[in-house]
């Protein structure tokens, strides 16, 4: 009997571990921009709760022709510069914030204007965790 209980417990724990996503994406949102602008930015908080480091290596969306990962840096003269990066490191146990004036996802050549309140479907591609689909609200 004890063996059966222990076996079931092991099974439950194992299934739980399989189901637990190490990457959590919180509060994804898209900056509302006027229709005359063909670019916007996407922000969110990404938490890597796993035991291994991961990377955000790509982004896909049907909302724009291009979607790139960028960082914005501000120098000592307060000059802001954007830099396209190949990936965003997501260290194990850390929270990485994509925020205005910092790291962000840039959507270039929007296929149509974004509207406040609508949700944009975005696939985030992680090196180890695969693809996670999020709905980012336009604000």
């Amino acid at each position: 009997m004890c063996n059966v209980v222990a076996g079931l417990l092991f099974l439950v724990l194992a299934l739980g571990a399989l189901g637990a996503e190490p990457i959590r994406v919180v509060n994804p949102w898209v900056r509302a921009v006027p229709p005359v602008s063909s670019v916007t930015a996407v922000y969110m908080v990404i938490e890597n709760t796993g035991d291994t480091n991961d990377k955000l290596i790509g982004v896909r969306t049907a909302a724009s022709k291009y979607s790139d990962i960028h960082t914005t840096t501000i120098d000592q003269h307060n000059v802001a510069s954007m830099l396209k990066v190949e990936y965003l490191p997501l260290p194990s146990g850390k929270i990485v914030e994509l925020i205005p004036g910092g790291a962000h996802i840039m959507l270039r050549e929007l296929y149509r204007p974004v509207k406040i309140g609508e949700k944009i479907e975005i696939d985030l591609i992680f090196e180890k965790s695969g693809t996670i689909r999020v709905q980012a609200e336009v604000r």
Partner: protein
Amino acid sequence: MGLFYNVFFKSIHAQNEDAYYGIEDGNELLNFSLTDHNGSDVNLSRLKEKVTLVTFGYINCPDICPMTLSILKHTMNELGSEEDKIQVFFITIDPENDTPQRLKEYTTFFHPSFLGLTGSSEEIEKIAESLKSHYPDEDGATEKNHLMSHTFSIYLLDKEARLFLTYPPSRLNPRAIAKDIRKVVN
């Protein structure tokens, strides 16, 4: 997180009641000749009609420019019935691509009173230099290139059209900026 914290929490708590939140200056501006998005001339004497807030940017800017204009929109909201005492100017650093009509559509999206300014590169550079604003010499923001660097600041000019206060990235709290504006206009 650092920038966000500075902008929205730390800076406003650190504010002395008598001191200005913006960094005080007093720089005189050189005369310049630009055009607003309605086709009217804007020069030094036009700036003396109201206290003005000035910022630089370009339409195909995904991060900093919409953020700055959103901060200015919230500043206007904070001012409430006093919002008509100031004028916000958004000066393009990409005059080749940012036509007056496009500037109008862009700036009024954030607030109906905001005015986009354009002109020759030389004239834009003149006012940028007067405000100690920098933007490296780059090609325009084409479809392939959205990476124009520029100073991320808001400038408050008094009714003598002097640079009175500068708001760098660490000082962009709309409520605190609105408080400064009330002190300057009243």
